[in-house]
C-alpha cells in the first residue's frame, strides 16, 4: 500500500516535471500575446513603433516576476504532503534568481569556497597533528619520563640506567614503565642475499610494547630477564619481516645475523604499530639494564623513558611516588644524584611540544580568515536582500506568505552554499595535498593526517548560517513591515536604507581590520624568515656532503681496528678527484644538541669553574671540511693518538668564557671526559638554525676512539657539485670492507634546509592566509561600493547632468570606500599591536612591533582598498545622465 502511494506520487512528480517545459512555454506565449496587443494599441494611438514598444514594456513591469508568480499559482502544492514538488519549485526559482545575478553569485561562491577550503585544509592538518589523541588505546594514560635538575626548573633530560631501574622497582602507579635508547637510531648491518644493508635498530627495555598496548602479530615481546646485551633476541617490524622472510610465519625461533652476531627472532609486530617517540624502526633489540653494563653508570644519562599510568591514577599521584624514590636516591648517591629527580609529563605534550606555538598561531590565522569570509558573506546577503525589497514586497502582495518567502530565500542561500561548498571541497582536497607536500618532516605525525568531513561540515554550516542570518532576517523584516512603503515607493534609486548602509559599512571596516591583523602577522614572519636565512651559522655548507659508515662491533670491536679503518678510508677519499677536504664528527652542527658534557678550568684565583659544553669527537680535516676556521694554535694531527698526551680544541666562546685574556693555548682543562691540554681555538658553530651558539669542546678520534664505537658522520668538501661522489665513495668503501654500507647520505644544504623547513612551512601558510584575507577584503570593498554605485545611478546622473566632472564623482565613490578602509585599518593596527606579542616565540631577529611592517601593511591595504573602489567609481562616471534619469 505504502509503495503504491509512493509510486503514484513519484509518477505524478515526474509527469509534472516533464510537463513543466510546455507549461512554461504556454505562460510565455500568453504574456507575449498580451504585450503584442498592447504595442499594437499604442501604435494605433499614433506612437512611433519604438516608443510604443518601450511604453508597453514599461507598463508591463518585470516579465520574470509575472512568469514566476503564474508558475507558483499553478503549481503551489495542493496538498501539504506534496513536498517534493514544492522543493523542486523552490530550487528551480532559486537557480533562476541566482542566474540572474551572476555577479552576486560568483562573489558569494568564491568567498565561500576560499573561506571553507583554506580553513578546512589547515584545520585538517592541525586536527591530525594537534587535536587528535595519540594513535594508541587510552592515550591519556601515556607519559614521558624525564630527568629533572633542581637548578634548571624546566629541564627534561634523559635517564640513566640505574635511575630507571630503581624507580621502576619502587612505584606502583604505572601499569608499565619502559626505556628506549635515546641517541641516533643505532644501526645494524644485515646481509640479505649477499647485499649488505643497514637497518634501524632500537634497543628497548621490557614493557616497551606494553606501554603502547601493542600486541605482536607473531611470537612475543621482550621480558625482564632479557634486559641484557647477552640476550641476543630480536622483534621484527612488519616491514622487515616481509622483506627478509617474505612474510613466513615460521620466522619466529629462527636466527638472523646482524652486525655479524646471531640473534633469535622472538616476535613480529603488526604493520599498524608506530612509535611516535622514536619514529620508524626496523628491529627492536634488548636494552641492557644490568648494573655491570659499561654504560650504566649513574652519571651516564642516555635513555628515554615512557610509561602508562594505571587507570584512575593521576599524574600528581604518580609524581608523588616517583619523588619519594628520587629523594632516597639523592641521599644514597649524592655524588651523582644530587638535586636530580625523575619527572613525568603527558606524552601528548611531549610529542607535539615544539610545534604547538606555530600550530596555534596558524589556527588563529585560520580563524581570522573564516571570520573575514563570514563577514563577506553576511555583507553580500545583506546588500542583496535590500536590493530585493521591492521584488519581495510584490510577491508578498500577490499572496506569497512570509513562510513561503522565507523558504524561498532559504533555498537560495542553500543553493549558493552547495555551490560554494562544492568548490570549497575541491579547494580543500588540493589544499591538504599541498600542505602535506610542503610540510616539514619535523612536523610531528604529519603522516597520520586524514581528511576530516566533520570539519568541512562545520565550516560550511558556519558560513551559511552567517549568510542567512544577515540575509534572511532583514529581508523578511522589510518585506513584512514596509510592504506598503516599499510598493508605493516609486523612487527605486534610494540607497537602501540608512541602517543597511551603516551595517554594511561596519562589516567592511571590520573586514579590513581583520585582514590587517593577518597581514601584519604574515609580514612579521616573512621578515623573520629572511633574517633567519641570512644568519651566519658559523659553517660553510656549500658543496659539503655527509654520510655515515657504521662499524659492526663483531669485526671492529677494538678501538685500534676502528681508528685504522677511518685513517685508511680518509686517505682513499682524499685521493678522489674533486675532493677538497675530508673529515668526520660525532654530531653535525645545526642538527640540535647532542652530547652535553662538562667543561672545567681553573680561574685566575685558582678555583675550578665549569659549564656545560657541547662535546664532539672529530677526525681528519673536519674543521676545514665543514668551514670552521682555526683562530689560535693548531688543529688535530694523526700523532694525537692513544699514546700521546690528551689534547683538546675549544670553540671561541668556550675560550672567552674560561680564559678572557686570550691565553687558552697550553692550559689544562677538563674537557671531553678527561684532563686535556688546549692546543687550538676555533670559531663557534650554531647548534640550531636559529643561530643558537653553544661553547664546544673537541677531541681527536685517533686518541678518544677507545671511549666507544662513535659511528662517525663523514664530511666531504668538494670543488663544485659532488656529482658521482657517492658512487666513488661506495667503491672505496667496498675496497676496504665488502660488507660496509654508506648510510644516510645527505648534503649539508639539505640538512639545514630541513631545519629551516618548519619556518618556511609556517611562513607559507601565513602567506596563503594573508593572500586570502586580502582578496576577501578587496572583494568586500568592491562589492559594497559597486552595489552603492548601482543604487545611486540616478543621483550620480543628476550630479553629472548638473555639471559635476567625472573626477569629482570618482573622488566621492573612492572616498566612500577609503573612509571605510581607514576606519578598519586604524582598528586593525590597534588589534595587531595587541596580538603581535603572541608571535614572540615564532619570530627571530625581528621586533614583533617592527615599524616597517606596521607602516607598509596599512599602506598596502589602503592601496588595495582604493583600487577596489576605483573600478565601481569608473563605472559610475560612465553613466549617461539621460539613461540614469530615465531608468526610473
Amino acid at each position, binding site marked *: 500500500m505504502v509503495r503504491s502511494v509512493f509510486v503514484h506520487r513519484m509518477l505524478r512528480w515526474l509527469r509534472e516535471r516533464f510537463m513543466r517545459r510546455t507549461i512554461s512555454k504556454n505562460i510565455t506565449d500568453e504574456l507575449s500575446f498580451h504585450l503584442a496587443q498592447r504595442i499594437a494599441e499604442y501604435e494605433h494611438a499614433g506612437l512611433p513603433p519604438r516608443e510604443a514598444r518601450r511604453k508597453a514594456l514599461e507598463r508591463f513591469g518585470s516579465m520574470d516576476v509575472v512568469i514566476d*508568480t503564474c508558475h507558483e499559482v499553478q503549481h503551489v502544492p495542493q496538498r501539504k504532503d506534496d513536498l517534493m514538488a514544492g522543493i523542486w519549485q523552490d530550487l528551480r526559482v532559486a537557480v533562476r534568481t541566482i542566474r540572474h545575478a551572476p555577479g552576486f553569485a560568483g562573489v558569494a561562491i568564491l568567498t565561500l569556497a576560499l573561506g571553507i577550503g583554506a580553513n578546512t585544509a589547515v584545520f585538517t592538518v592541525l586536527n591530525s597533528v594537534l587535536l587528535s589523541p595519540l594513535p594508541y588505546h587510552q592515550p591519556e594514560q601515556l607519559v614521558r619520563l624525564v630527568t629533572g635538575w633542581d637548578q634548571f626548573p624546566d629541564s627534561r633530560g634523559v635517564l640513566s640506567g640505574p635511575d630507571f631501574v630503581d624507580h621502576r622497582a619502587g612505584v606502583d602507579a604505572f601499569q608499565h614503565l619502559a626505556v628506549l635508547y635515546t641517541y641516533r637510531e643505532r644501526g645494524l648491518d644485515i646481509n640479505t642475499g649477499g647485499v649488505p644493508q643497514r637497518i634501524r635498530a632500537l634497543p628497548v627495555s621490557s614493557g616497551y610494547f606494553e606501554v603502547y598496548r601493542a600486541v605482536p602479530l607473531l611470537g612475543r615481546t621482550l621480558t625482564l630477564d632479557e634486559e641484557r646485551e647477552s640476550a641476543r633476541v630480536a622483534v621484527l617490524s612488519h616491514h622487515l619481516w616481509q622483506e627478509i622472510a617474505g612474510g613466513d610465519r615460521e620466522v619466529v625461533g629462527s636466527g638472523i645475523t646482524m652486525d655479524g652476531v646471531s640473534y633469535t627472532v622472538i616476535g613480529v609486530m603488526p604493520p599498524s604499530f608506530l612509535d611516535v617517540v622514536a619514529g620508524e624502526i626496523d628491529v627492536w633489540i634488548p636494552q641492557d639494564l644490568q648494573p655491570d653494563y659499561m654504560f650504566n653508570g649513574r652519571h651516564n644519562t642516555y635513555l628515554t623513558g615512557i610509561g602508562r599510568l594505571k587507570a584512575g591514577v593521576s599524574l600528581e599521584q604518580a609524581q608523588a611516588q616517583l619523588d619519594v624514590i628520587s629523594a632516597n636516591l639523592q641521599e644514597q648517591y649524592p655524588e651523582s644524584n644530587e638535586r636530580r629527580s625523575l619527572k613525568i609529563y603527558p606524552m601528548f605534550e611531549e610529542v607535539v611540544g615544539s610545534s604547538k606555538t606555530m600550530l596555534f598561531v596558524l589556527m588563529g590565522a585560520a580563524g581570522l580568515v573564516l571570520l573575514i569570509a563570514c563577514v563577506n558573506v553576511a555583507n553580500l546577503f545583506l546588500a542583496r536582500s535590500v536590493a530585493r525589497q521591492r521584488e519581495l514586497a510584490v510577491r508578498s502582495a500577490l499572496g506569497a506568505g512570509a513562510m513561503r518567502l522565507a523558504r524561498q530565500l532559504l533555498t537560495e542561500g542553500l543553493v549558493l552554499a552547495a555551490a560554494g561548498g562544492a568548490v570549497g571541497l575541491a579547494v580543500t582536497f588540493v589544499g591538504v595535498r599541498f600542505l602535506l607536500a610542503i610540510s616539514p618532516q619535523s612536523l610531528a605525525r604529519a603522516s597520520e593526517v586524514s581528511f576530516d568531513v566533520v570539519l568541512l561540515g562545520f565550516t560550511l554550516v558556519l558560513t551559511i548560517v552567517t549568510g542567512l542570518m544577515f540575509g534572511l532576517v532583514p529581508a523578511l523584516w522589510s518585506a513584512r513591515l514596509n510592504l506598503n512603503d516599499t510598493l508605493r515607493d516609486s523612487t527605486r534609486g534610494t540607497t537602501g536604507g540608512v541602517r543597511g548602509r551603516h551595517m554594511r559599512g561596519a562589516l567592511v571596516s571590520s573586514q579590513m581590520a581583520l585582514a590587517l591583523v593577518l597581514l601584519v602577522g604574515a609580514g612579521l614572519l616573512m621578515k623573520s624568515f629572511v633574517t633567519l636565512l641570512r644568519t651566519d651559522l658559523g659553517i660553510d655548507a656549500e658543496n659539503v656532503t655527509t654520510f655515515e659508515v657504521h662499524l659492526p662491533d663483531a669485526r671492529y670491536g677494538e678501538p685500534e681496528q676502528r681508528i685504522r679503518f677511518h685513517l685508511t678510508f680518509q686517505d682513499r677519499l682524499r685521493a678522489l678527484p674533486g675532493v677538497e677536504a675530508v673529515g668526520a664528527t660525532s654530531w653535525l652542527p645545526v642538527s640540535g644538541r647532542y652530547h652535553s658534557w662538562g667543561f672545567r678550568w681553573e680561574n685566575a684565583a685558582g678555583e675550578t669553574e665549569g659549564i656545560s659544553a657541547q662535546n664532539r669527537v672529530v677526525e681528519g680535516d673536519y674543521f676545514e671540511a665543514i668551514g670552521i676556521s682555526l683562530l689560535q694554535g693548531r688543529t688535530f694531527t694523526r700523532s694525537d693518538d692513544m699514546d700521546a698526551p690528551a689534547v683538546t680544541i675549544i670553540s671561541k666562546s668556550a675560550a672567552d668564557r674560561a680564559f678572557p685574556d686570550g691565553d687558552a693555548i697550553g692550559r689544562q682543562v677538563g674537557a671531553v671526559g678527561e684532563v686535556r691540554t688546549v692546543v687550538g681555538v676555533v670559531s663557534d658553530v650554531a647548534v640550531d638554525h636559529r643561530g643558537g651558539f653553544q661553547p664546544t669542546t673537541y677531541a681527536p678520534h685517533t686518541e678518544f676512539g677507545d671511549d666507544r664505537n662513535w659511528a662517525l658522520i663523514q664530511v666531504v668538501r668538494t670543488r663544485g657539485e659532488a656529482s658521482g661522489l657517492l658512487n666513488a665513495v661506495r667503491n672505496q668503501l667496498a675496497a676496504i670492507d665488502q660488507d660496509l654500507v654508506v648510510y644516510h647520505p645527505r648534503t649539508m644544504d639539505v640538512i639545514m634546509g630541513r631545519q629551516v623547513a618548519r619556518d618556511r612551512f609556517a611562513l607559507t601558510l601565513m602567506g596563503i592566509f594573508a593572500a586570502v584575507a586580502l582578496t576577501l577584503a578587496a572583494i568586500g570593498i568592491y562589492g559594497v561600493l559597486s552595489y552603492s554605485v548601482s543604487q545611486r545611478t540616478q543621483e550620480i546622473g543628476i550630479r553629472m547632468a548638473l555639471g559635476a566632472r567625472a573626477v569629482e564623482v570618482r573622488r566621492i565613490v573612492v572616498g566612500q570606500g577609503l573612509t571605510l578602509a581607514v576606519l578598519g585599518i586604524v582598528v586593525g593596527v590597534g588589534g595587531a599591536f595587541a596580538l603581535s606579542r603572541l608571535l614572540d616565540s615564532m619570530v627571530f631577529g625581528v621586533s614583533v612591533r617592527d615599524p616597517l611592517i606596521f607602516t607598509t601593511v596599512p599602506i598596502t591595504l589602503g592601496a588595495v582598498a582604493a583600487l577596489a573602489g576605483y573600478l565601481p567609481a569608473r563605472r559610475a562616471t560612465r553613466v549617461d545622465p539621460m539613461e540614469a534619469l530615465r531608468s526610473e
Partner: protein
Amino acid sequence: MTKSQLDLLRGTLDMLVLKALGQAPMHGYDIARMIEVSTEDVLRVEEGSLYPALHRMERRGWIAATWGRSENNRRAKFYELTDLGREQLELESAEWKRYTDAVEQMMRKS
C-alpha cells in the same frame, strides 16, 4: 490617461474579471481593455496581478481556458466562465453591493 488612474482595491480584481467574462469568452488583453474601457480608464489593471489572478481562478475551477486564434490570427488563450464561476460572480456581486451600500449609507449621513 489624462486623469489619474486608481489602483484596484485588493480583492475586487477577481470580481471584475468574472464580470467581464460573464459577457463573452475572451483573452487576457481584452479582459484588461474591457475593464479599462468600461470604467472610462479610471481603473487600471496591472498585468502583474491579472495573469496570476486568471491562473488562480482557472485552478479553482471558476473559469476554463482554451487555446484559440485571435482576430489577427495569433495563438491566444481564451477564458470563459464555468458554472462554478457564475455562482462565484453572483456571490461576490452580492457581497460588493452590501459593502458599497454600507459605505454609501455612512457617507450620505454627513
